[in-house]
């Protein structure tokens, strides 16, 4: 609950005290629009720009937008942060693939796995889910369980310093979701 009040407080601080209701509605509508445009683009791509397909496409886009708003509540997301994330992700997932491939091909199979607890600084919500999924694709780490304030990570080689890499990832994810990181609380 403490976490939740924190993120609510954060949301409020972005709104000016005057006309906050209008601001809230604007932010909300901007997100609905953003998703509708994204689904429209996807439909356009899948049907290769066929004009006739919009007879089906228009209701599909509308329904997809509605369902996505219900299933995934709106979250803030920074465009600059997201663009920065892409090269970081591609480079590190390449490294991750090469690393695990090398270990699989190596005759002696150099692995020293263990579970590691990583205290999370990200607030609960979309950014954490995103972090959990990204951790599994980066070098030598696999997210096992998301606790209240920490993430249990399976590490393929404990001789490497994965914690600092996870912290770098966390910072980049935070920038992507427009979040300022608090101090880690851990689960203890």
């Amino acid at each position, binding site marked *: 609950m403490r976490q939740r009040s924190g993120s609510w407080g954060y949301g409020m601080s972005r709104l000016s005290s005057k006309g906050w209701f209008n601001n809230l509605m604007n932010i909300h509508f901007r997100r609905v629009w953003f998703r509708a445009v994204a689904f429209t683009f*996807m439909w356009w*791509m*899948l049907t*290769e*720009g066929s004009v006739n397909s919009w007879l089906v496409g228009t209701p599909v886009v509308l329904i997809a937008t509605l369902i996505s708003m219900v299933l995934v509540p709106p979250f803030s997301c920074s465009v600059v942060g997201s663009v920065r994330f892409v090269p970081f992700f*591609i480079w590190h*997932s*390449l490294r*991750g*693939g*090469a*690393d*695990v*491939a090398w*270990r*699989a*091909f190596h005759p002696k*199979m150099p*692995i*020293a*796995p*263990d*579970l590691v607890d990583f205290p999370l600084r990200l607030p609960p919500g979309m950014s954490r889910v995103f972090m*959990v*999924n*990204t951790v*599994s*694709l980066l*070098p*030598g780490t*696999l*997210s*096992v*369980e998301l606790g209240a304030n920490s993430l*249990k990570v*399976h590490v*393929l080689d404990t001789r490497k310093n994965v914690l600092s890499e996870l912290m770098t990832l966390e910072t980049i994810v935070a920038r992507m979701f427009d979040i300022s990181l608090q101090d880690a609380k851990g689960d203890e």
Partner: protein
Amino acid sequence: MTPIDLLSSALLIAGGVFFLAGTLGLLRFPDVYTRLHALTKADNVGLGLVVAGLAVQVQNWFTVGKLLLIWVLVMLASASISHLIARRALLRGIKPWKR
């Protein structure tokens, strides 16, 4: 063979090597967690390279978009499913293998 064909075959072969590594890891690694490492990461890169190898050959931007969409969706599915399998394994009390 045009340079495009050459680049495309290099990317496809590299992708195949990563898929081979992922399968080898699945067979050689000692427990469920380490096997998930091999599958998620090596296959993600393998599929990425295969998608890139096909994307340089196609004439049409729509197809490039579709290929990228396939890669993103497979990545999303493999990351979330590997997390779910690992979580279930831990909850069932499967201890990670240690050297």
